[in-house]
């Protein structure tokens, strides 16, 4: 396995970074951002859309740092796990990522911008040549999608980041920067339904940090993740659930989000809004699980078959709600 050669740029400030990107764009050079590299470099080694320029964010001080309401894009996942200030739901989700070695390298920004994955894509070049490539990395062949043939519009590769659903539940706002300026949006609006474009980032734009509302500190939640092995494996499905609990123990502001089922993580706010607060929680959890099962649309491109992942969506949702309830009671 060889990493294809590329030129690396190492800006020291955010302004430098977006300026470097602008220059490369002006020169019509293709480039990628790199933070921890745990996703990008393996893809490069497989020959999946490697670029000749890479801009490293390792030296950009401004986008680091972990605190209760602001997490920098360059914050290492393991630092998030170990931070005493970060919301426990975020730490829980971060702790379920890959392995400790990968978490020490991988970052929040990298996890949010994780490339989508697919059995027909994450393979070597000889392998992909044997299926005449696919839509997402067609090597100029104009290849079709191999998961759902004859639809050359959307890429259905699966988004398998763990942090997004937890952050969405807590009401996180993502901040972006480019040479054109800065902007921000609720995290769920950051993602765009397509396995190729994946999110709203424009060429030359990066995630700088996520911001959490102060109210998130009184939220209690749980993240449930489905996978074959308890380390390394990406989520085959993940559901986060969080509720606002006031000092009297009254519950409001429910939220639920999922990952690993589709090409983007998704908020299920509309589903939880239907919860009948008067009904028995266990039964509502079960009902909501069934609702979620009907909502998610997994396809056959990861380890578990889609029918199973769909069914597990209901178990994950139920367990997330039950676990959250347990945590509220014990707190």
């Amino acid at each position: 396995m060889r990493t294809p050669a590329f030129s690396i740029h190492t800006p020291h400030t955010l302004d430098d970074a977006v300026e470097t990107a602008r220059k490369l764009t002006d020169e019509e050079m293709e480039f990628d951002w790199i933070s921890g590299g745990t996703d990008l470099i393996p893809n490069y080694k497989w020959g999946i859309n490697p670029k000749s320029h890479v801009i490293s964010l390792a030296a950009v001080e401004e986008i680091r740092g972990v605190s209760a309401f602001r997490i920098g894009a360059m914050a290492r996942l393991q630092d998030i796990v170990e931070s005493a200030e970060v919301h426990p739901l975020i730490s829980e989700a971060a702790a379920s990522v890959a392995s400790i070695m990968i978490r020490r390298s991988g970052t929040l920004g990298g996890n949010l911008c994780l490339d989508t994955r697919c059995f027909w894509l994450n393979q070597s070049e000889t392998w992909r040549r044997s299926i005449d490539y696919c839509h997402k990395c067609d090597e100029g062949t104009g290849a079709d999608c191999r998961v759902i043939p004859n639809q050359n519009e959307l890429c259905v590769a699966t988004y398998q980041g763990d942090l997004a659903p937890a952050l969405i539940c807590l009401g996180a706002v993502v901040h972006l920067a480019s040479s054109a300026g800065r902007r921000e949006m609720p995290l769920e609006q950051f993602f765009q339904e397509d396995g190729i474009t994946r999110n709203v980032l424009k060429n030359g734009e990066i995630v700088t940090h996520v911001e959490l509302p102060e109210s998130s500190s009184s939220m209690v939640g749980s993240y449930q993740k489905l996978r074959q092995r308890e380390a390394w494996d990406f989520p085959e499905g993940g559901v986060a659930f969080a509720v606002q609990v006031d000092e009297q123990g009254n519950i409001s502001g429910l939220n639920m989000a999922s990952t690993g089922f589709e090409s983007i993580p998704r908020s299920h706010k509309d589903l939880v809004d239907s919860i009948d607060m008067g009904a028995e929680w266990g039964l509502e959890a079960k009902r909501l699980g069934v609702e979620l099962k009907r909502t998610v649309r997994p396809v056959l491109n990861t380890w578990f078959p889609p029918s199973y992942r769909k069914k597990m969506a209901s178990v994950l949702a139920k367990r997330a709600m039950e676990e959250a309830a347990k945590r509220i009671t014990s707190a």
Partner: protein
Amino acid sequence: MVGYRQQPGKLDFTRPGSGGSSSVSEKREPGRIPESQGGDLLQPWGPHRHDDLITGRVIGKRTPLIDSKWKVTGQAVYGDDIRLPGEIIGRLVRTDRHYARVLSIDASEAESIPGVLGIATGEDAPHAFGVLPVTKDEHAMAVEKVRHIGDIVACVAAEDEDIARLAANSIRIEYEDLEPIFDIKDGLKDSDNPIHDRGRYHIGESNVQKRVFQRFGRIQNIGDSIASHEGSWTFKGVNHGFTEPHAVVAHWDPRGRLTLYTPQQVPHYVHRALADVLEIPMHQINVYRTFVGGGFGGKSDPFPHEMCAAILARKTGRPVRITFDREEVFWTNRGRHPSKISMAIHADDEGRFSGIETDALIDGGGFASFGHVTTYYNGVLHTAPYEIGAFHYTGARVWTNKPASGAMRGHGAVNSRCAVEVGIDDISEKLGVDPIDLRLANLLPPHSATITGFRITSIGMRECLERVRAESGWDEKFRKMPLGKGIGVGCGFFISGSGLPIHWDPNKFPHATVHLKIDMDGGVTIHTGAADIGQGSDTVVAQSVAEVLGLPMDMIRIRSRESDTSPVDLGSYSSRVTFMNANAAVSAAMQIRSELIAAASEITGVDEKRIVIGDRRVFSKDDPSIGVSYLEALHKAQEDRGALVASGSYRTPPMGKMHKGAAAGLAPAYSFSAYVAEVDVDVETGKIKVEKVWAAHDCGKALNPLSVEGQIIGSCHMGLGQVISEEMRYGRTGNLLNPDLLGYKIPTVHEMPEVVPIIVESNDPEGPFGAKEAGEGPLLPILPAVCNAVYDAIGVRIQELPMTPDKIYRAVESTCRKGGFESPLDLPSPRLNQTPLSKILKERGAQHSIRDRERRLKSEPSAYHNGALFGNDPETPPEELDPSWHVQVLPDEEYLEEPGLAGSAWLHTERRHRGEGR
């Protein structure tokens, strides 16, 4: 600071002749000297022929592997660590077609790339090779067809890896695509283009590579059973998943000799294959075995890439190194065969196994590899440890357009053993008895013959079962735990070395040879060709020699790497090394020992028969103060001749019956094991967590308990992978979807249960100091133990491995639907209602226990042939007395009217019998 930073001079090396009165001399440990030799070591299984060689030094002691410090300090040189002056990089050009005829290869663009030094294609190596002499069907590079994605078409050598990869991608190949087959069942059908052509031996026009038919015993009585189990299993293919990808360096020296550096389990076969392919005599080749980063059967074939490296090195005149990507490891594969096995087990009214009927169709992928043997092993290796009334096996191996299957730890025995042991669990439930009681009442005794004629010598099966039963708290847990919690038992049986050396007559040449050389310094150099692949074969040979000569381990050094200096050894497969190679080492050491004793007798005047060897000292056993140091005896023995040299070897005794295929599975000894596994199943998601495993293995004698335990724990991990998560998964297009270690799910530390290794020592009469194998057998029981525990937990049997959560969930869902349960959490867990048969079995088990104890302690026990339990005369082979006792290796017409799946391979007629073919 300890470890390798320590100054070598400060290590406590022993002085060679300082035995006896020296302060660094170690006292003889009576607890390690057998009681038959006057020591305190209890021998509940009786004395052994090697007892008088025991000096109480190292045998039975927990001994760190002698090469471990090289590994932990990073100084071990593996295949890819070899660096030679002027070395260049080779890269294999692999096909992107499933099955195609190669029409043309255009290398002109690649040749023009600066830095490209050599390109080779199939034309450069027209000779076929293969690990078994009967099925040589591989070439260095495709000569006519490519047979699976990743098959090698050409190879290039270049100044560096980037150029080599670029060049490999620049070679243009024109193909004519052929219709590929992926489904194992399609392999049974006639085809326009069979994947290989076996000439006059071709079976029909099909893709059947090998077929086996066997019927032994009273087949006609199978119908009289009162309980039967019928299972229909699907086993996915698994890969060895070793750490080190294949790597090789080939170098032609200035004299024109080839040295091939390769992490090989079986250097001798590569040696032979290289001579064939390169058309040079074997004496012009030196095969150098580097450290091996895990083999497990996956590095035991001679490989095309090894040939390619040698061919490129010859073309370019430079040393050529080839290292695989992980994906190439999966494409080379040789892992366990994907199989479809139907298994029927029958029990009669006395709780005896009146018959086992097995039909195994195994998927060989593109090449034969070890498949000829695997086809037999899938049947014959489950004819023990139980006494059976009848055995009917049909097996077939087919070619498909996938990477070749081959030998993997537990070769050929694992899948069908799982089916048998799960079947016994099911039968015991149908009979209303405890499955351990059922097993204990049906075991073959020591010194017996199986239904197909294997010679069982020592057998510790009963003790294994009794130990795991007691230590796991079985009687309090089995069928008594709540939903989701379960416990299960499984047994294993495996060969300790293959009785038949495939390249020569076992009655003429030995299986293993060991040379010893001792010069004036007193250190012993051992030359052996046995390949240490991490299992500790170097250590065990060193231990054997150290024990016999009464020397500390630091006085023993091993030279086992090069075929130039090592005597021929068959290599590390079929769990043969400890048994055969240590026996050869003991026999060589015995010669040196007698020379030392003769020399000591000459110096002291004590009769040779009264002299023993202790810690670096040779002395009178009547008065230990009369004696000489080891060095004194050695130097006396060296007078007039210099260094002492000795050669020892091991050959299996004549064994087995005469029917076709009788040699398959024949071994000088067999290992036995029994595991109990406790699991926790999440019924809502179908996820299994194996919590704890009690693993008892009968290895005859643990020469090194530390490494036996390591083998048991490692086997548990490897077998566990096959049960819960590992599979080579092929997509709808026939592509291997997970040729990488993220997609190929080897259990992590989170999935690994606590393993309690339990060593049972049955003291094999022929094994070195009583030892048998411990490397492969311990893998077998973990699969059925977990399957049976899952049943105990949730009452669902899944006959497809791996039991990934989706499969368990699907089964749980269908059970709920059938039983009318709303939620999986309402499922009942199975319970046991014991029937009167239980008592009969317990009594028979107790009687057999006494029988076995008597037989193992008798110096000349009477013959015992399988079938005695069914009323036959134990001392005569049943077929000699009972005309209705089958010994049948060809199907009859009646069978062919309604054959099993694999059995249907016999519907084809070989070309030679049709009067066709060359």
